[in-house]
C-alpha cells in the first residue's frame, strides 16, 4: 500500500491528522455536560434516588426512558449496516462504519442508564450471583451484552485494513496503538479472504441478536399486567421504533460529519435520499403499529386501559403525546415524500424530529402507565429534577464524546471499502446485473468471487 493508492482518499485521513479549534470547543462543551451529569450522579449516589423526581407510584422515569431510547438508537448501526452489506447495496460503503460506531457507543450509554437507575448500584453483582432467569431484566442483560460484543467485533473487523493504512501512513505517538490493533495486517489474498468471510458471518449473526435486543427490552413492560404495557404487539413495536430512531440518528450523524469534515464527495445527496426513503417506510410502519396498538386498546375499552389512554390523549400527558405524533409522523411525512431537491437538509431535519419524537414515545410508554395506578392511589405528577436533566445531558454528552474520539482516532469512512467499491464493486455490479438478465451467464460461484476480490485488492 503506497501513498499513490491513498491519493484519492487522502481526505478521509484529515480528521485524524488535523485537529482544529472546533475539536477543542466541542470537547469542552461535551466535558461540561458530562461534568454536570457526574455531579448529578454523585449527588444521587450519595443521598439516594430521592433527589430525583421519582416517587410512588411513578417509580420509573427519565432513566428507564433513556434506557429504552438509547438501546433503540443502537439499532442504527449494526442492523442497518448488516442488512445493507448482505443485500449488497453498493451505496452502503461510506455509511456502514459511522452506523456501527453509533451502535457500540450508544449501547454503553444505554446499559449505563440501568446502572444509574438502580437504588443499590453497589449490589449490581447480585445479578450474576443470584441471577434469576425468569426476570425479563436478565434477558436484557444477556441480549444487550451479546449485542455489544458482536457489534464491537463487527465494528473492529472491517476496521483492521484501515488501521493498517494508518499504521503505514502516520508516525508519532499513536503508531504503537495502530500497530497493535492492525494485528499484522498486510492485505494479502489470504487475509482478505478470511476477513470477508468473518464479516459476512457476523453480519448474519448480528441481525437476530439486534432483533432480540429490543424485543426483550419491550418485554420488561409487556410481561407485567399493567394497563397499556401488557400488549402482545410490544416486541415488534419496539423493534420497529428502534430501527426508526436508529436510522434517524444515523442520518443526523451523517449530516454533522459531512458538514464538519467536508465529506460532500463521499456523503452525497443520494445517500441521504436512500436513507430518507428507508426512514419514510419506517415512519409509516411506526404509525401503523401505533395505530393498531391504540385502536385495539380503545375498542377493548377496559376502564384501566382507558384511564391511561385518555391521560395520553387529553389528560396531563397530552403535550408529550401529540408532540410525539407531530415529530414522528407529521414532520417526517411532509419532508420525506419528495426528496428530489434538498435531500440532505430535508432528511436531516426529519431525522432530528424523529429522534426527539422517539424519545417522547418511550416517555409516553413508561410514565403514563405508572401515573395511573389501578387503585385510587394519591396521584402525583412526575417532574424530573436537575439530577435527571443532568444525567440525561451527561449521557448525551458522553455518547457524543465517545463518537468524537473515535473520529479522531480512526477513519469514520471506511477507506478500503470505498476503494474496493471503486476497484471491484463497479465491475461486480455490472456482472451481477448481467446475470439477472435472460441472456446473461450463470451466476458465478461465491467462492470464486471472493477469490477475485481478494486478488484485485492486493
Amino acid at each position, binding site marked *: 500500500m503506497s501513498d499513490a493508492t491513498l491519493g484519492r482518499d487522502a481526505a478521509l485521513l484529515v480528521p485524524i491528522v488535523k485537529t482544529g479549534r472546533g475539536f477543542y470547543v466541542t470537547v469542552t462543551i461535551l466535558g461540561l455536560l458530562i461534568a454536570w451529569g457526574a455531579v448529578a450522579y454523585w449527588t444521587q449516589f450519595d443521598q*439516594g434516588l430521592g433527589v430525583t423526581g421519582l416517587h410512588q407510584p411513578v417509580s*420509573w422515569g427519565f432513566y428507564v426512558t433513556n434506557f429504552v431510547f438509547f438501546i433503540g438508537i443502537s439499532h442504527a448501526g449494526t442492523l442497518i449496516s448488516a442488512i445493507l452489506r448482505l443485500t449488497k447495496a453498493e451505496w452502503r460503503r461510506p455509511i456502514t462504519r459511522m452506523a456501527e460506531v453509533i451502535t457500540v457507543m450508544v449501547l454503553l450509554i444505554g446499559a449505563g442508564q440501568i446502572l444509574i437507575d438502580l437504588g443499590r448500584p453497589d*449490589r449490581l453483582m447480585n445479578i450474576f450471583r443470584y441471577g434469576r432467569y425468569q*426476570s425479563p431484566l436478565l434477558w436484557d442483560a444477556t441480549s444487550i451484552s451479546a449485542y455489544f460484543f458482536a457489534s464491537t467485533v463487527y465494528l473492529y473487523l472491517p476496521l483492521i485494513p484501515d488501521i493498517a493504512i494508518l499504521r503505514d501512513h502516520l508516525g508519532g505517538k499513536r503508531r504503537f496503538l495502530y500497530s497493535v490493533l492492525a494485528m499484522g495486517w498486510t492485505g494479502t489474498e489470504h487475509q482478505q479472504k478470511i476477513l470477508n468471510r468473518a464479516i459476512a458471518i457476523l453480519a448474519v449473526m448480528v441481525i437476530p441478536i439486534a432483533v432480540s435486543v429490543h424485543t426483550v427490552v419491550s418485554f420488561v413492560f409487556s410481561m407485567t399486567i*399493567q394497563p397499556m404495557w401488557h400488549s402482545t404487539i410490544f416486541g415488534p413495536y419496539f423493534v420497529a421504533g428502534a430501527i426508526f430512531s436508529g436510522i434517524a440518528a444515523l442520518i443526523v450523524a451523517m449530516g454533522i460529519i459531512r458538514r464538519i469534515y467536508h465529506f460532500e464527495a463521499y456523503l452525497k445527496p443520494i445517500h441521504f435520499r436512500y436513507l430518507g426513503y428507508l426512514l419514510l417506510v419506517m415512519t409509516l410502519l411506526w404509525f401503523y403499529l401505533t395505530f393498531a396498538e391504540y385502536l385495539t386498546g380503545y375498542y377493548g375499552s377496559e376502564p384501566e386501559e382507558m384511564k391511561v389512554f385518555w391521560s395520553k390523549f387529553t389528560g396531563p400527558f397530552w403535550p408529550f403525546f401529540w408532540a410525539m405524533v407531530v415529530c414522528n409522523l407529521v414532520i417526517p411525512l411532509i419532508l420525506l415524500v419528495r426528496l428530489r431537491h434538498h435531500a440532505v437538509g430535508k432528511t436531516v431535519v426529519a431525522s432530528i424530529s424523529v429522534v426527539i419524537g422517539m424519545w417522547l414515545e418511550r416517555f409516553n410508554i413508561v410514565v403514563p402507565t405508572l401515573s395511573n395506578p389501578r387503585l385510587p*392511589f394519591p396521584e402525583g405528577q412526575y417532574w424530573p429534577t436537575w439530577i435527571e436533566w443532568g444525567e440525561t445531558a451527561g449521557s448525551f454528552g458522553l455518547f457524543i464524546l465517545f463518537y468524537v474520539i473515535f473520529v479522531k482516532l480512526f477513519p469514520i469512512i471506511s477507506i478500503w471499502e470505498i476503494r474496493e467499491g471503486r476497484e471491484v464493486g463497479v465491475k461486480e455490479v455490472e456482472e451481477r446485473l448481467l446475470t439477472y438478465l435472460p441472456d446473461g451467464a450463470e451466476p458465478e460461484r461465491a467462492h470464486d468471487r471472493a477469490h477475485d476480490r481478494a486478488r484485485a485488492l492486493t
Partner: protein
Amino acid sequence: MACKAENNVPAVGAREAARGRTISWMHVLVEESEERTRFLPCPCLQCDDPPCTKVCPVYATYRNPEGIVAQVYARCIGCRFCMAACPYNAKYFNWLTYQKDAPGQNPDVSVRPKGVVEKCTFCHHRLQKARERARAERRELVAGDYVPACAEACPTRAIAFGDLSDESSDVARLARSPRAFRLGEALGTKPKVIYLVETEAHRRV
C-alpha cells in the same frame, strides 16, 4: 400505627410525603361517595401468584413456602421492577435514608437502608417467634399463636387473621361468605387478603 411501630416503618417527613414518598405498609384507601365513606385498608395482599416476584432479577422478592411474599432487603438491588409490576402498589421504596438511629425500634425487624424496596410481610417475624415458642413447648403451631400487628391492634376487629387452608377456621368461613371479594380478582393474582362488603347488595369490585 401498630404496623409502623411493629415493623420500624420510617416516617419520611412532611416534605417527602408531599412528594409522594410516604411509606405505609398498610395503606388505607378511601372511597368517598354521597351516601357513605368506605375505608379499604390495603396491606400487601400476599398474592398466591404474585406479579412482583416474577420480575425480580435477583430473587430478592419471592413467595416463601408459607405463602408470604418476602423481600430480602440485603439482596435487593433497587431496580423497582417489582413496584412497576405490582398492580396494587403495595411495594415501597427507600428513596433516601429514612431510617435513622432512633430508640424504641423493634429489634426483631431489620431496618432498611436507602435504595431498597420494602413491603408488608404479614409480620413474618411474629410467625418465626411463634414457631420457636411452639417448638420450645414441644407442640404444633396452632391458630392464634401468630397474628400480625394490624389484626391485633384493630379496635373494631375489622381485620381477621387465620389459616385459609383450614376449612373450619373463622377466616375460611368468612372467605366463603357471599359478601367476600378480593381486589383485582380478574387479574388472576390470587390475593390472600379478602374483603367483606356491608351487604351482598353493595357488592362490586
